[in-house]
């Protein structure tokens, strides 16, 4: 009987452990400094996109990169919000498209796209990229995000 009680208590503890709120969220939203120093690759639209996405409570981290024709943004969302990922994606894509009518907007919540954009941002900041290389990398990322199987 005692063992049963212990098992129930322990399992309830584990079940309820998942319901805690994240306290680590707000700190790394704006983790990339505003990058306009790189004259060759103007990243102002991306900075603007980050500002817009910062207003969403569901989003915890943002990465965005653009060239003259396209802008690609990826975010990490709070774990509970993953249930409404589809509608969130739709809403934010529309928001970004309204903001940047001249650019092709690509928005993703995928972990891989987020990682790739993070690498690309680092490359831009260390100024190792030419305009063409940036475009090629962006194309690669867009292609990756469109893959289904």
């Amino acid at each position, binding site marked *: 009987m005692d063992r*049963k009680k212990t*098992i129930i208590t322990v399992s309830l503890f584990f079940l309820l452990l998942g319901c805690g709120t994240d306290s680590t969220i707000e700190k790394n939203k704006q983790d990339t400094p505003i990058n306009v120093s790189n004259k060759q690759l103007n990243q102002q639209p991306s900075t603007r996109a980050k500002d817009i996405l910062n207003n969403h409570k569901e989003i915890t981290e943002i990465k965005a990169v653009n060239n003259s024709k396209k802008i690609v943004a990826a975010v990490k969302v709070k774990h509970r919000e993953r249930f409404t990922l589809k509608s969130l994606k739709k809403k934010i894509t529309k928001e970004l498209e309204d903001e940047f009518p001249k650019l092709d907007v690509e928005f993703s919540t*995928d972990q891989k796209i987020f990682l790739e954009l993070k690498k690309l941002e680092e490359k831009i900041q260390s100024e190792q990229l030419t305009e063409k290389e940036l475009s090629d990398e962006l194309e690669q990322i867009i292609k990756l995000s469109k*893959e*289904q199987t």
Partner: protein
Amino acid sequence: MADKKKKNLPPNAQEYQAFQQQREVKRPLLKNCLKAFLVGGFICLIGQLISTFYIYNFNFTEQTAGNPTSATLIFFTMLLTGFGVYDRIGQFGGAGSAVPVTGFGNAVISAAIEHKTEGFILGVGGNIFKLAGPVIVYGVFSAFIVALIKTIIIGWGGF
């Protein structure tokens, strides 16, 4: 059905059944559920780790990492089944080890091992999907039904 059968039994057999039901060891339902939950959850955790590994080290997105992940899980299950480890996990975890994709791998490979004595063609080839066959049939069938319902709701419901 079972009640009908019981009524047709002679009285002493009915008596015996009542006696047996009293003495029978009850299934520890809650304990089994907990075990299944923990074992199934642990298998899913391993799956998530494999998936993350593929995302970080190869060119897979969350969307596309699912296929290699299930393939890897099934491969490891097959090894474990061959070495006789998965049977023990199944004994302990019950449904928790049967419901994830690893259970499917186990069903295929254990049937193959069991019927190896009857030869490779009619033994292994004929019986390898003995357990997994119904899973495939009803999986496809229920997917079809669900898709049909979804199509009707979206098409005619105006959502």
